[in-house]
């Protein structure tokens, strides 16, 4: 745009493309799942892995929730042997990123029946992949409500003893578990 005056750059950009990337690493800093949504940021797998290594080194000891790294704001959370990260531009509302991280963590937690650890996650990798896909589509936050994400990620019907529980019941129990975790 040649004619419009340049923006000061201090204000946040009015865009839906907020999330630059999300990833889950194990406790050695290896990638379990990672998605990057901006073609201009970390375009190759090599750069991404180098970034993840760096990110992990900077974050695995300090439990500090948020870090600015390589021009990105990264919010993170860990549990047992898993590290969850959500990345956005360094010029982004940190709290929005935080809400996405919460959505990611909570929905994974519900999917894994609160056993948030690497082995269980790998056993349910397909569901977690679907959750990833339901939270963010190409950098746009698709949904940030854990129960509805889990609902859309579709629990495997065979896992639930048929006749005992319907999908609605599963969701109900998930909701209750969530409530408990919030009350804690």
């Amino acid at each position, binding site marked *: 745009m040649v004619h419009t005056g340049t923006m000061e750059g201090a*204000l946040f950009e009015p865009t839906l493309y907020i999330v630059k990337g999300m990833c889950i690493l194990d406790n050695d800093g290896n990638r379990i799942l990672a998605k990057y949504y901006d073609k201009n940021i970390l375009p190759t797998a090599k750069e991404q892995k180098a970034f993840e290594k760096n990110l992990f080194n*900077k974050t695995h000891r300090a439990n500090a929730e948020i870090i600015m790294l390589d021009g990105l704001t990264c919010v993170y959370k860990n549990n047992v042997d898993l590290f969850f990260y959500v990345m956005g531009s*360094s010029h982004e509302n940190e709290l929005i990123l935080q809400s996405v991280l919460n959505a990611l963590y909570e929905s994974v937690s519900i999917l894994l029946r609160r056993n948030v650890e690497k082995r269980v996650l790998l056993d349910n990798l397909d569901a977690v992949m679907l959750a990833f896909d339901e939270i963010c589509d190409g950098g746009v936050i698709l949904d940030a409500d854990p129960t509805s994400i889990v609902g859309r990620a579709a629990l495997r019907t065979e896992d639930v003893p048929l006749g005992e529980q319907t999908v609605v019941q599963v969701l109900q129990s998930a909701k209750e578990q969530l409530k408990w975790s919030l009350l804690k």
Partner: protein
Amino acid sequence: MSSFKRDKKEEEDSGGSPFMNLDKTIVLQEARYFNETPVNPRKCSHILSKILFLLNQGEKLSTQEATDVFFATTKLFQSKDVMLRRMVYLCIKELSKLAQDVIIVTSSLTKDMTGKEDLYRAAAIRALCSITDSTMIQAIERYMKQAIVDKNPAVSSAALVSALHLSSTAPDLVRRWVNEAQEAINSDNAMVSYHALGILANTRRNDKLSIVKMVTRLAKSPLKSPYALCLLIRLAAQLVENDDSDAAQPYIEFIECCLRHKSEMVIYEAAHAIVNLRKTARDLAPAVSVLQLFCGSSKACLRLAGARTLARLTSKHPTAVAACAVDLENLISDPNRSVATLAVTTLLATGAESSVDRLMKQISSFVSEISDEFKIVVVKAIRRLCQKFPRKHQSLAAFLAGMLRDEGGLEYKAAIADAIITLVEENPEAKETGLAHLCEFIEDCEHTTLAVRILHLLGREGPKSRQPSRYIRFIYNRVILESGPVRAAAVSAMAQFGAQRPELLPNIRVLLARCEMDDEDEVRDRAIYYNAILDSGDQQLINDFIIDVPKSNPILLEKALRDHIATKPDEPFDIMTVPMEEEKKKEKEDVVEIEARKPKQMTIEEIYTQQLSRVPGIESLGPLFKTNIPIDLTEPETEYRVRLLKHVFVRHIVLQFECLNTLNDQILEKVSVRLDCPPEYEIKSMLFCQRLVYNQPGSVFVVIEFPCAYLDSLGTFGATLEFVVCDCDPNTGAPDPGEGYADTYPLEEFSIYCLDQIRARIMGDEWDSTWERAANVPEVSGNFVLPELDPATAAKSVCEVLGIPKSGIIDGAIKEIRGGGVFRGGAPYLVKVRIGPSSEGVRMQIAARSPREDVAQLLLAALE
């Protein structure tokens, strides 16, 4: 032994996990199972997740492999398992970028998208949009429109988000769905209205009026979704930013109102907007107090957000930030080091001299733990401190030197070196210590670019110091130890010492002579070149080619050289025709800010060279001398906007009329400009703009020859835009049938000034000697009496007319302005203006020297 240990650990870790040590070929083999009927959904889903896992790990599939897997995957549409179907969609999305003929699944996906199973529909839409291109999209347009207003929020969101992705390739098409999106904005579901708002804001981003309408309407009936509110705040803030009138007041009120929202996300968004608006809100206090509260939060995110935003305020409202000192003090020892760094640097920026030492001690306790970005923030804060409290330079320089010795990337090291360099340049007392630190640093510096820069600085500043000889050892060490580029820089630096300090000349000559045997061409060439110049003993020669060498803009130099080789390789190249490097504008200092990824800065000439190359015959005009800052020829809010760029060549000027059509129901064709030229000017050619569609700039170029006599070159032009208007459909941009009609549009007059034709050069301390040396070139002088009462204003306006930076004014009872530069064609000039008070206003005495007397006369004429 160690490998055995690791194996054991891996075994424990993976515990036979199916995803460890996956092999691509085996997994691709497994995918063949998909061709069986019936399939076991569980097994298939597992194989699919293995494929996705591999892709996610960065494994590369060849196009053939990807296509094979893709086609195998499509077989899985036979299964009715929900989970499996969803995995299939995911796979389609991932493979769509790698495989061929992916559109084969269009019909299956369209069926799912319109089917009854809600769990399929949303995901099917997103998968479908990832495989369609703009030509295919028309076929599914009807379904998309329906999906946007579907009562299932997942479906509606999926359609909206997919539409947003598509709008980057097919903006016109998506614009037709605006009505549906408008409807979706009122949805009960928070995410749907967020996505709808996002797509509306995106399609209308160039249509200010409709954004105004939308924001005004939505601000009155607040949205439910906090995300949507954040977006609305951003839109409102943008409107305030682009509007200087009082009309923006309601938006500011809306943003202030959001400070009382229940969601922290929205509160922060509002506070951030208020703090960062260029036009300050009446009252910052509520926003600041919200940020203050954030600083005391138990969540690190909130503390960081609060501290960061307060830090940004330091430059504009230091007092507002100083009031939060207590809160920031509490954050100094924050476990999140980013927060601590921001707190300390902010306090440094707002605090008094007495607190500097204490805060510095705090920083040094954790500086090794923070990331490079934040280290740079710290370095910048220290750099500002050096300027603010020059007396503290000793401890600050020592601190910087300490940081320089630590581990760190190039950018970090460069920031430190920059800080020391400014310290050296601005504080004469700190010069010796600063240079000593830098000397020590290059002894062990792995970054070539940095070493070169520091050597250059040593060459510039070293000879002026009390004991120049001590630096030579450091410089010569580089010649012995380093790579080619560093050696070459070291040779140049040594030459500076030889040129400026006669007592060192014999020694320097010996050192340079040794470099003449270097393996590297550049080093050898430089050594011989400098030695020859120093040998001549001609002070003028030494000054022009060693001490004060004009530097050409490297990018334009490269282009000029390439053009030269292409057009007239036999003639010698004249470097004076290439624009000089402009002094970098002092960057606007953001007090405490983390570096975002910044686009590369380009000079105006670099930006337009590409566009100019379209003008036929442009090569024959010679190299571009200068492109002037654009001027508007229309009011800002008119239907057609035109901006003029004057590209000056040696004997020609190319006028570029950059036009923008802001009416979406018109297409302009055969756009041209009718010019009323002053008598001496001659229009050579004109390049029409064939088609000017809505909101896409296009340019008309006019090539004009300058009058032969320089003095005739000042003149005023009248201009009228001429074009043929064709009406078109505002939504699709398709022109209505039938002929258009011719129309004209008056533009404002513009002039060609002296300033347009000169390139001013920054003159340093050497101005006096240069002026003296030019004693025998023609001089033109004159006296004027100006009615303006104030010498300072007069001096400023003289500077503007002659393009001399304000720093060229030497203050005193009688103000003296010294400047110089090059006229188009390469004639250099020097000008001296003395301004003093007199009985009837201001008295001005001007003297201009140039080998071309008419250039000097023109300069005088410009001031009349």
